[in-house]
């Protein structure tokens, strides 16, 4: 009995039970489609993240204070409260070579008003004049605040593009006064569009000298108590500089200033590469999780096939007996039922691939999430479906092949 005939016989037998075959395939269809859609979602997320990381700006070193060592008020000295202070930034700027810029960030949230229009929950980023250089941002209209304004705690503000559009529309915002948490600030510039980077929409924020945040905008007593501590110092290292060397120098400098040993640093330094590595390990585990979920549904589909094949073997016991009586060897019977199971899973696989591609496309189109269909996911899911057909078809086929022809022929 050759393969072409096997396939034809299997096909006829599936056709004679169309609804049942379709329902059985549905398990595989859903499983295969799930694998493709899940992988396309995780691939889409990865693509978004890697674009975001590249948009951070190049050669950045992020220094964050950690409050776990000592905590506020425990240690004496320049960094009595632990973590980072504004002067750490100044020290880095003065003493470390090969850096293109240093800035700090300390943010707060406030309502921004102009002429009756109020925008709530706007992030106010307190920083230094180096901010646009380090963050790789351009000023569209006007200018960024300067060092003099920083030192004098001048009440000036630079607006993100979207904030400017929402507050002023077609009006020229330069020189206008906006009210931020009851403080009047003069608009000196508007930034060019930067968009969403690493989950932060730079166009919906406003930017003031950090001194203004410290002195005027700190929303509560705790923040005032925290004084000039900063959440993060960002250093932009020269393109041709040795990154590791610069990091080492910064570490030694800050350790000395904070009076801590290298074993008990109260700050951490990350580079962009570290962030990429962290993101990658996060997305990798995300992808693994999705793959497992999809794999389980594929497995359930396989069990469905086994179930229906066992029913089919029982129902067709007489047919099996007859085929054996007319010369079918146990091998022939096994191949017949195995090819039916295979056909169910392969056909389910093909339909599942189509459904998966369509699903991934529609999902990317109609949801916030981005999807990228990877060719390997199609191969993987289809291959798994084929293997599942063999694996779950094997036992029922074996059962059919081992039937005693006499018993099978007498079966009612």
């Amino acid at each position, binding site marked *: 009995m050759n393969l072409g005939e096997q396939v034809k016989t299997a096909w006829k037998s599936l056709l004679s039970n169309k609804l049942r075959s379709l329902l059985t395939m549905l398990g595989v269809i859903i499983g295969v489609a799930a694998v493709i859609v899940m992988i396309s979602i995780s691939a889409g997320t990865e693509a978004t993240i890697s674009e975001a990381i590249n948009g951070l700006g190049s050669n950045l070193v992020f220094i964050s204070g950690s409050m776990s060592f000592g905590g506020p008020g425990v240690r004496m000295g320049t960094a009595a409260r632990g973590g980072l202070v504004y002067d750490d930034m100044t020290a880095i700027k003065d003493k470390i070579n090969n850096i293109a810029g240093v800035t700090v960030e300390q943010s707060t949230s406030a309502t921004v008003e102009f002429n009756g229009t109020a925008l709530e929950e706007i992030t106010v980023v307190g920083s230094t004049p180096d901010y646009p250089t380090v963050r790789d941002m351009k000023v569209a209209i006007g200018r960024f605040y300067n060092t003099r304004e920083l030192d004098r705690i001048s009440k000036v503000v630079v607006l993100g593009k979207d904030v400017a559009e929402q507050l002023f529309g077609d009006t020229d915002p330069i020189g206008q006064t906006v009210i931020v948490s009851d403080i009047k600030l003069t608009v000196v510039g508007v930034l060019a569009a930067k968009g969403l980077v690493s989950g932060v929409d730079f166009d919906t924020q406003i930017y003031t000298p950090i001194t203004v945040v410290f002195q005027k905008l700190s929303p509560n007593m705790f923040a005032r108590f925290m004084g000039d501590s900063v959440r993060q110092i960002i250093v932009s290292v020269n393109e041709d500089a040795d990154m590791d060397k610069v990091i080492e120098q910064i570490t030694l400098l800050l350790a000395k200033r904070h009076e801590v040993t290298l074993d008990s640093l109260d700050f951490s330094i990350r580079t962009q590469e570290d962030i990429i590595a962290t993101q990658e390990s996060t997305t990798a585990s995300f992808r693994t999780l999705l793959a497992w979920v999809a794999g389980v549904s594929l497995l359930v589909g396989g069990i469905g096939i086994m179930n229906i094949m066992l029913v089919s073997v029982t129902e067709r016991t*007489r047919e099996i007996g007859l085929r054996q009586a*007319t010369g079918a060897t146990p091998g022939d019977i096994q191949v017949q039922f195995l090819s039916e199971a295979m056909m169910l899973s392969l056909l389910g696989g093909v339909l599942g691939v189509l459904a998966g591609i369509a699903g991934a496309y529609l999902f990317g189109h109609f949801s916030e999430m981005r999807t990228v269909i990877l060719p390997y996911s199609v191969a993987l899911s289809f291959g798994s479906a084929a293997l599942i057909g063999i694996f779950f078809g094997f036992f029922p086929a074996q059962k059919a092949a081992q039937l005693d022809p006499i018993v099978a022929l007498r079966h009612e």
Partner: protein
Amino acid sequence: MDEQPAIIQTVDLVKVYGSGDSEVIALDGVNITINPGEFVAIMGPSGSGKSTLLNILACLDRPTEGQYIMAGEDVSGYSRKELALIRGRQLGFIFQSYNLLPRTSALENVMMPMMYVREDRLSMHERRNKAMEVLESVGLADRSHHLPNQLSGGQQQRVAIARALINDPILILADEPTGNLDSHSSYEIMELLHGLNDRGRTIVMVTHEPDIAHYTQRILQIRDGKLASDKKNGKMPPRPQEALQATEQEVSA
């Protein structure tokens, strides 16, 4: 002139089912020889072992002891696969309940056993033609595309006979071929088998109806797992023609 080897030769055939207390001796030393061209009926009360004997002769089962030599080939110790190949190549089966594949046309039912032929395979087209020829020979050319449930019992059995003939077997085995049929159809089937026998086919059938066995050449009586009698019906067995005509008159009356 050289004698052709016997189609069936059994030597002290024993079949035991179960073991210990539940041991049942179904066959207890059966010696039979059936030569080419014979038309033999195996008779006996139920539980006599006649079905067991037929199953062994049909290569569906293996003897516990003794030998079964089929056309010169000792098949007693054959594996399941080897027995399957023998069945496909040399045997044709007719069952009491026809055993046609449902939802499958008469023609395709007849073609089915050709699927399992391993050597000298025919093309699909040749198989179709051959199946049509055989269907014609059992008088069902015009029913070739009917499904089993569109055929009468007698017609279904004739399809089954065509199926048994399709691979040119050296031996045809029938298990109560008329058991499910009315007497008119029974005579028709017997007439058909007779015709096949006339053209040289060797046929062995199990029946418990004496008037059906009456139309064969030789009757083997099995009792308690042993061959009780082996009688020839005479050189020229009666044909079921007369009985057939008689029932036809009944039908038309």
